[in-house]
């Protein structure tokens, strides 16, 4: 349900109707920024938003994204360490 895709606001189309130009991987589309605007629309330029059916529905929180990726990275390292230990234990068993 609800296909949404991150895009970056690259221009303002119509301040009055709160329409901006968003870009997703080289594809451009006018989107409504009513849901994410607070203040003059220029401040949105460069912002990443989640786009659904022609509306920017949410601003993407860069810090939260980084935190999630960091957690994933740590988890990966911990898992590698665990696996190395398991491999070590198996090798020991094999020798015994």
């Amino acid at each position, binding site marked *: 349900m609800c296909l949404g895709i991150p895009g970056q606001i690259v221009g303002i189309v119509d301040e009055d109707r709160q329409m901006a130009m968003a870009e997703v991987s080289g594809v451009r589309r006018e989107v409504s920024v*009513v849901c994410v605007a607070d203040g003059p629309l220029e401040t949105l330029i460069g912002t*990443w938003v989640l786009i*659904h059916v022609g*509306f920017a529905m*949410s601003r993407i929180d860069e810090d939260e994204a980084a935190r999630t990726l960091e957690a994933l990275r740590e988890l*990966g390292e911990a898992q590698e360490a*665990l696996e190395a230990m398991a491999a070590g234990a198996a090798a020991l068993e094999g020798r015994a």
Partner: protein
Amino acid sequence: MRYVEEFRDPQAAKSLLSRIAATADAIGATRAKPVHIMEICGGHTHAIFRYGLDRLIHEGVEFIHGPGCPVCVLPRSRVDECVLLAERSEVIFTTFGDAMRVPGTRKSLIQAKAEGADVRMVYSPLDALELARRNPDREVVFFGLGFETTTPSTALTIRQAAREGLGNFTVFCNHITVPPPIRVLLEDPHMMLDGFVGPGHVSMVIGTHPYDFIARDYGKPIVVAGFEPLDLLQSVLMVLEQIRDGRAEVENQYARVVPEHGNPVSLAAIADVYEPRPSFEWRGLGEIDASGLRIRDAYRAFDAEVKFAIGYGAGPRAVAEPEGCACGQVMTGRIKPVACPQFGLGCTPEMPLGALMVSSEGACAAYYQYGGARAASQVQEPAE
């Protein structure tokens, strides 16, 4: 693609899968006695199959595909009403592509189009509004379909139409809400769910608190999840860890997009334009109280139900499912798609019998498209 590629990293997926396996082992989940996790959202169902996650994940974790596919749960009577609207000569009927092939009792929108109805696919309700501006002598009806993610877009479009005083634009409102059917599923005595993966894009609108009852009243974990493979895997891990630790909480894996309290502008627009219907029919689940929305009186000029006299409940209700169709049981998780007697035989994506075979996020279509066809032939061969 930023915020997409990073969450598709194969190495991280491997680590997550190992950690999931270790956690599943720790709680004693096995193929014979699996942990049942429902992904509520059809977008998650689609992603699970697109990336083959169901085959990669520990065999003690079983996905139950939830009712979060708006075209799958749309009753056939409403599709029939769409077709009737589309067949009116003054109407340009606009819709998302998703609804085009959903079978009604008589025909689908794509068939109505072939027979001469002016049906047009649009990407956004704003595009339907633009059609109304450009065609002042025609009635442009937009098929308002979807959960809380999509509801703000039609609400804001109606408000824009009101501001411009457009007299030839209406919305045929079929918006529905996520929490009520979850409660129905949890009340079902046959239901054996151990936890939920929550719908990320619905939650960016409504926030995470509408799910509090799942943890508080029913003691089930729920993790609101993003749509990339790492998002899904991490969320499954978080559900398993809650089960392992004996916790039942609402957690948010998708914090980069989902604020705790949702989006205030969207919520205000929904509240301004829509109100709950006393009840709404869900295909496979029946009537559910306060689960659907209708347009408030203040915006009745933009309500296709009013303008074209299609009161909800005016026509014959609860059109029976086609014979042999087990969509209802599949949707409630009681049976797997391949266990439906019609799966892959009387019901295929070419000739869908039930809605779950139509939408690419319907559980049956996903099974069929992404590898279930083989499973089906294995299941059904002995019976033949």
